[in-house]
């Protein structure tokens, strides 16, 4: 797990904690850089696998400051895929499910497979890789993000 602190915070409204779940080193590095530069969240945690992310959320479910408000989730990972993660996420304590909202970050367009998580409010946004600064500018301008920072 890697945590990076966004030190240039300037009073701009930001989330406290974001999590990136992806097994791809380059994607993680770039996503983290773009997240820092976009000032989405003050801190970023990287989880290199779906199972380690589930373990982290289970272990820390009662420590509010360690639960991310937003999770950037890759769908194509070995062992525990993004879809597997979503299934297991729904079994996590309510404290986690209510607080963490999920943005899908995938190289494939699999929106049609995610309808039930969109309908229940877990998945709030979809970004096709490669993640670019413009994607996060659009996300920050979106209604879903604006609701999160109120």
């Amino acid at each position, binding site marked *: 797990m890697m945590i990076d602190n966004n030190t240039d915070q300037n009073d701009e409204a930001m989330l406290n904690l974001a999590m990136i779940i992806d097994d*791809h*080193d*380059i*994607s993680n*590095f*770039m996503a983290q*850089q*773009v997240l820092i*530069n976009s000032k989405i969240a003050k801190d970023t945690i990287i989880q290199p696998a779906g199972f380690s992310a589930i373990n982290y959320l289970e272990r820390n479910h009662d420590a509010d400051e360690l639960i991310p408000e937003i999770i950037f989730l890759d769908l*194509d990972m*070995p062992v525990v895929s993004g879809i597997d993660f979503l299934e297991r996420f729904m079994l996590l304590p309510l404290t986690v499910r209510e607080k963490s909202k999920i943005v899908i970050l995938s*190289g494939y367009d699999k929106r049609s497979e995610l309808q039930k998580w969109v309908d229940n409010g877990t998945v709030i946004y979809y970004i096709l*890789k*490669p993640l*670019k*600064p413009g994607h996060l500018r659009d996300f920050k301008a979106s209604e879903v993000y604006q609701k999160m920072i109120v």
Partner: protein
Amino acid sequence: MNHDYRYLNIEYLYEYLDDNNASLKELINIFIPSIKKDWSLLVVAIENKDFDKIKAHAHKLKSSYRYMGVFSVGDTMEKIDKLAEGKDNINLIKILSIEALQIHEEIIEEVSDFLNNNP
């Protein structure tokens, strides 16, 4: 500073990295071993005609090249990814991978040159 490379798009990467040279070097230092590992896994998967693994490794390489701004090789990897999904056309997959591997060697030379000139 000369950023005139055939494949490596430094200006594109600076846009991502907020013009931070240290971050760019860090990225390249992640890119080199990561891409070499994924290429070796792809080559083995092609030799074994293991289409599921070809698809998985080509998909990962596609993402890596696109993040680096090398879209031509990223597009070739996408073609391999799609061909592997059909579990056919191993000969075309081989041809595409050989072409991409030749370009990959030049990309490695370019990123190494960038690191050597930006100690």
